[in-house]
């Protein structure tokens, strides 16, 4: 299937599943324990957004921080379904924080 996420994308989705309020890109890097690199995190998140598994929230401002607010990434309902299906068929998520 063309839209089925890759192993790295699955890992990112798994991390996002644990945080229903969403995460910044750098928080995804921290939660992945070094598996997802800074250079690749936005590529993975962008791909997931294109596939419809992740939604991007752009807040108006970040509390206590100047400048443009950073986007927050949340798992969509479709993303949750894909994760559930992957767990059902026994795909493992190596590297994700338990």
């Amino acid at each position, binding site marked *: 299937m063309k839209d089925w996420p890759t192993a790295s994308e699955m890992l990112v989705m798994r991390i996002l599943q644990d945080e229903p309020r969403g995460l910044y*890109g750098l928080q995804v890097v921290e939660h992945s324990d070094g598996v997802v690199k800074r*250079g690749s995190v*936005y*590529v993975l998140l962008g791909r997931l957004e*294109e596939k419809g598994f992740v939604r991007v929230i752009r807040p108006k401002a970040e509390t206590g921080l100047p400048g443009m607010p950073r986007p927050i990434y949340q798992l969509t309902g479709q993303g949750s379904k894909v994760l559930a299906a992957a767990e059902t068929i026994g795909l493992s998520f190596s590297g994700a924080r338990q």
Partner: protein
Amino acid sequence: MSERPRKRKEKRYIGYERTCGYPDRTLEKLMTPDVRRRLNEIRHGLATTTDAAREHQAASPVPAPRKIELPPAHLLVVVSKWLLNAEAYGRYVEPHVLDMRLEYFKAIAAGRRVQARWIVVRGYWDVLAPLRRGLWITITRWLREGYG
């Protein structure tokens, strides 16, 4: 029958600045050099109205000129916006730049200038992958829309 000379086009635009907010360059062309210099002094806040004020200004120390620093990755943003379409830029490159700037300014605020430099260097290195992906998306979309 001699044709009546037409009015110069610029004259119609005198006062344009007041209504539209654009600098009225045509008005400046009509001014003598002295008047133009005086106008520039007023614009830059250098003009003084009275002799006393002029003397006071001469006696007071000249403020050091301020250096306006551009944020880190300014060039990267300009080049990326030129290379990529808006969607690819916003999805792949912009979040990366925002992270880099946030970390940079945090380091600057903490007085760690070396670390700030390192954040910029690392940021330029890390942005290569998102930039490549953005370029790929931009080119494929362009080809699809152009030939599809």
